[in-house]
Each structure stands twice: as C-alpha cells, then as structure tokens.
C-alpha cells in the first residue's frame, strides 16, 4: 500500500474498513513501529469465553512477543484487550494501556471502529515514546 514497503494491513474483500481507513491504519501502525521500536498489531474478531486468555495467546503468536503490543477487539462481544510484552510494558504501563482502552471504548461505543483503533495505537505509541 505504501511505496517501497511491504505491509500486511489487509482485509477480506468485504471487510469492515474502507480503503481510506485501511491506509490510515497502515500508516498509524507503521509510524508507531518506527518511532517506538516496538511491534504494534491489531486483531479484530472473536475472543472466546476468556477474552484475556485468548488475547494473550494471540500475543504469544506475534513475531517478537516481548516487544509486541497487541490490541485485540471483539466487536460482537464488545470487549477489547491490550496486551504488552515484557519489554513493551516497561514503556507502556498498565495505567497507560487502561487510558488508551478507555478512549478506544468510547469511540467504539459511538460506532467508530477505525477511529477507535487509530486512537488506541496513537495513544499507546505516544506513551511508549521514542526508542
């Protein structure tokens, strides 16, 4: 999507986001990764009965879990989980994550899925600071 770079911001043909929203999400994740040195990712889907456990399991599947920040959102269950790896949590405290989660939940409650995700990534990256 961005020239000269490989990105994995993709969705099924009939996904919940418009092309413009996908581009914005791609840019937000890329900038967050570049500025912080951490690995940000978003999961959108069901999180099972134990949402926290499922989110942590998904987090373990990321490339470098210790440096990964996962934002897992289940629109049907109306729940979100933010998981920070052992190194990432030194820069993004649980309180920071809670604040980002509050902002995201407020946006989701208003029906703004893409906007909420953008707010969350931006806030988490801001809290993490530069690498």
């Amino acid at each position, binding site marked *: 999507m961005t020239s000269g770079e490989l990105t994995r911001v993709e969705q099924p043909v009939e996904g*919940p986001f418009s092309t413009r929203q996908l581009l914005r999400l791609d840019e937000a994740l*890329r900038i*967050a990764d570049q500025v912080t040195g951490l690995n940000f990712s*978003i999961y959108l*889907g069901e999180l099972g009965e134990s949402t926290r456990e499922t989110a942590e399991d998904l987090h373990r599947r990321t490339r*470098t879990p210790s440096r990964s920040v996962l934002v897992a959102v289940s629109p049907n269950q109306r*729940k*979100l*989980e933010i998981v920070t790896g052992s190194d990432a949590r*030194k820069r993004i405290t649980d309180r920071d994550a809670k604040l980002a989660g509050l902002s995201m939940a407020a946006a989701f409650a208003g029906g703004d899925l893409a906007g909420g995700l953008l707010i969350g990534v931006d806030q988490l990256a801001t809290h993490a600071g530069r690498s």
Partner: protein
Amino acid sequence: MIIPAVVIGAVATLVLTGSDRSKPSRRYRPGQPFDFPAMWLSAAPEKTAAPALTADGHHTAPAIERGLVIEDSSGAPVRPGPTGGASDKW
C-alpha cells in the same frame, strides 16, 4: 409552494437511493452483529536489535512491579505475568 415540494422530493429521493443496498453496510453499530471474518492488522517490522536478556537468560523486570495492576474486562485484578496491558468493554 411547488418549488419547496420539488426540492424536498429531490432530497428525499437522493437520500433513499444514494446508498448501495446490494452490499452489506460496513459501518459498525454496537449491538448489531459483526459478520466479518477475523483479521490481523500489522505493519512490516523494521530491522531492530533483539531485546537483551540478563546473563542467565532471565528478564530483568520482576513479574510484579509497583504501580502495575492488570485487570480483566470486569475490573477484577488478574494475576500478573510476563505480559501487561488492560481490558475494557463498551
């Protein structure tokens, strides 16, 4: 009197026929079914140095750090581990 009626009729026509009803609406509405398949979104990772561990291979940060509290989506404290974060709902 005729002109306002024509204008109202034109606007109403545009509103009712403007959206493509053959495709499902993408807009997320809380409480409405979210029928899209699960997806991952991530940017390609940049080349970064691997995180360093201590000489004996353990993480330097203790499992419990002062001021760090993990809560599940109901607000109940969750046993801390190597990961942190937060939960919320709407």
